[in-house]
């Protein structure tokens, strides 16, 4: 893995998200109430809703367009809905948010 620093944890509100632009589209980076970070694709598999604009509760997010709920850990749709959003490795070190560059590039090639 090669980690890239994308910004400070403080730049994302608790229970909030910001996007990272990549060559293949936006990745939504979430910060939970308890300061965990998760990165998933910003496109809802239902109809492309921007997940970064959803409400974050626990380690889940609710899509702003039609309220599908996704696990930020696995990317899986919860409850009756079926779908999966790609997830990416993310972590916080010394107050900085790090994403796995190799994974992001792998996706770009795929």
């Amino acid at each position, binding site marked *: 893995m090669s980690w*890239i620093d*994308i*910004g400070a944890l403080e*730049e*994302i*509100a*608790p*229970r*909030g998200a*910001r*996007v*990272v*632009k*990549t*060559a293949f589209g*936006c990745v939504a*980076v979430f910060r*939970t*109430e*308890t*300061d*965990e970070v998760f990165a998933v694709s910003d496109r809802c598999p239902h*109809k*492309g*809703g*921007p997940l970064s*604009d*959803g*409400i*974050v*509760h*626990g*380690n889940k997010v*609710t899509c*702003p*367009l039609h*309220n599908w*709920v996704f696990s930020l*850990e*696995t990317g899986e749709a919860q409850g009756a809905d079926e779908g999966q959003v790609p997830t990416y490795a993310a972590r916080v*070190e*010394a107050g900085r*948010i790090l994403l796995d560059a190799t994974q*992001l590039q792998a996706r*770009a090639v795929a």
Partner: protein
Amino acid sequence: MKQKLVVIGAGMASGRVLERLFEAEPDAYEVTLFNAEPRGNYNRIMLSPVLSGDKTYEEIVTHDDDWYAENGVTCRFGEHVVGIDRNRKVVIGEKGEVAYDKLLLGTGSAPFIIPVPGKDLPGVITYRDLDDTEKMIEAAAKGGKAVVIGGGLLGLEAAAGLKERGMDVTVLHLMGHLMERQLDPSAGYLLRKDLEGRGITVMTQASTSAILGEDKVEAVLLEDKTVLEADLVVMAVGIRPETRLATDAALEVARGVEVNAQMITSDPDILAVGECVEFDGQLFGLVAPLYDQANVVAQTLLAEPAAFVPKELSTKLKVTGCDLFSAGDFAEGEGREDIVFRDPARGVYKRLVLEGDTLVGAVMYGDTADGSWFFGLIKDGTDISEMRETLIFGPGFQGGAQADPLAAVAALADDAEICGCNGICKGDIVAAIQDGATDLGAVRATTKASGSCGTCTGLVEQVLAVTLGDDFVMPAAQPVCGCTDLTHEDVRRLIKAQELKSMPAVWQELGWKSSDGCHVCRPALNYYLLADWPVEYIDDPQSRFINERKHANIQKDGTYSVVPRMWGGMTTPDELRAIADAAEKYNVPTVHVTGGQRIDLLGVKGEDLPDIWADLNKAGMVSGHAYSKGLRTVKTCVGKDHCRFGTQDSTGLGIQLEKALWGSWTPHKVKLAVSGCPRNCAEATCKDIGVICVDSGYQISVAGAAGMDVKETESLTDVATEKEALEIVMAMMQIYRENAKYLDRIYKWVGKVGLDWVKEQVVDDLENRAALVERFLLSQSVYQKDPWAEHVAERAETYRPIANLTLEAAE
């Protein structure tokens, strides 16, 4: 021959090293011990009991003069080490050099001082050693006001001690809840409540901008311009490893002095231990890991193999009566699952975090008896699959009590108001039940509770259930969401009756089943709290739907629409020009004249929002809140200025109404219209609130609809003057704001409580009308501001990507 060991710092970590060393091989080393403090080793963590007066300094000394003498330690207390010469292998003290074969750094940490003006004034102190403690005790003897900056472990222990000694104490904390590193918001809420219960004032999200005073501290100035008088200021905002000597000696230093698992620094003859070290990117601020390090240091010094392994930590607060415990990692994470237990009546909150079949974290408040048992399960990684169902009840109680859905009502005090309309408290209802009123009808007949607007019916039924037990069968009611068994109406009444003013307060006192709610309950709670406590509650954007968080309407392709206000449907050539310019500049694909008499710019990119708003602001326009559960539009017709039938200035009244009501948040959206005569060109009779002008004045009607339902308004009252019309409308807004269920439009809500009740409150009872208007205006004094301007000024950055990796790829 004995080797020479020099130790810098007589702290808790190095003290433990020496104990271990002398126990194992008393003759291996000849020790010289430097300490900047003019005393030997004492139990630093017991300074808080010294501060509160429960212990004396003598009681917390760990190594006295005899001990040092017996072990042949040369003590150089009260002497700072000023340098290390690694070439000559000598340590330079203020009073002379000492040669070493092995050197141990145990310099601990230095308190962090926030760099604000006034930080050096006399009366501003930190909390680290005995001298600080004595200064606090001395200051407290004079009484007066103390401000403690920092709501972590140290700050709160200082606050409790100073309070115990009779000072008037305020704690300022930058984050949203106390001890955020160790506690989650729910536990933080209970801690705050306990501290407040003992008379300590707690202010969260409080950022200090300066400490004021001439030749000693007099006050603390906050960023929001609040000034707090202070005779003493304690800074307890964190610590920083004391690494100056190591840095000067060119040892490898990151945030702390870097060591390997043998506790050896980048120089093989120099070891380090305690809070000054950094191991594997980690710093240490509690004694448990320092003691583990100390054992390793002693072994390394004796050339025995040993390796330091950081373990899970647990935290307790040494403030009597604040019973908290946290251990392990209770953050949400990959494959993790929460078990939450709340007992509102006893003020108990427990949360366990599971990962697969093991427990990885625990936070508890109020009842921490099982803390060490849970901590053991965490450290040992015990498989808990067998006891999962009952785990939260602890080792002694594997029987399994179910959380009681009526707990919140059972916990209510007798003087908690259940029926707001008639001022009936829980105690009145219980008394009536005990006198034989055993069903809703009888309670209503004897007490009037739930006999007016009826929104407290659910609660009255719950009081019946709690009082009568199995003799009363609760009708099934629709709870807010899966996080609670209570209905919206119950939650609203309980927020008022129990004066719940934060989201964690609601979760805890009403026994929420999740740790931080969900997308269904959070927006509703956020609304209820801000409507009931406009001054105390701080709006939580993260609990709002995206439209209200970003102040624009999200569209199906993820772009947004922007609708500036056009007061009463009026505009000017300048405004139109500014809108046209903005539409061109930001490539707005669609410009539409809305059904609400204004102009919608559709298809704006999220990251352009702050810029387009700034442009529209410059032309004098503010947000039209076209996205809000709040005031939308006040449509008007041209009225008597132009129209041959117009009776009053309908446009003017519409503008006045919009200017009075804009910015207010409501349970659902609110739309008004004012027509100049009964021909009703503004369609006032299908709005939430409509005004028809007539020769004799203004006919005000409410509860219309023209969306999914179409419904004509019903007459509320007729008034003679604009002033009265404004009052009635504001009172109507407020009664709706205070009572309706989230997402009920006015017509739905009036359908539930009855128009007669609304008339009584808003029209007939003049005193009540005035009180409603007053509360509306209070709320407006907080919330009536243009969110666009605010976001442009303060949070424009959050609308943009946090990083752009496409640029890097291109490079």
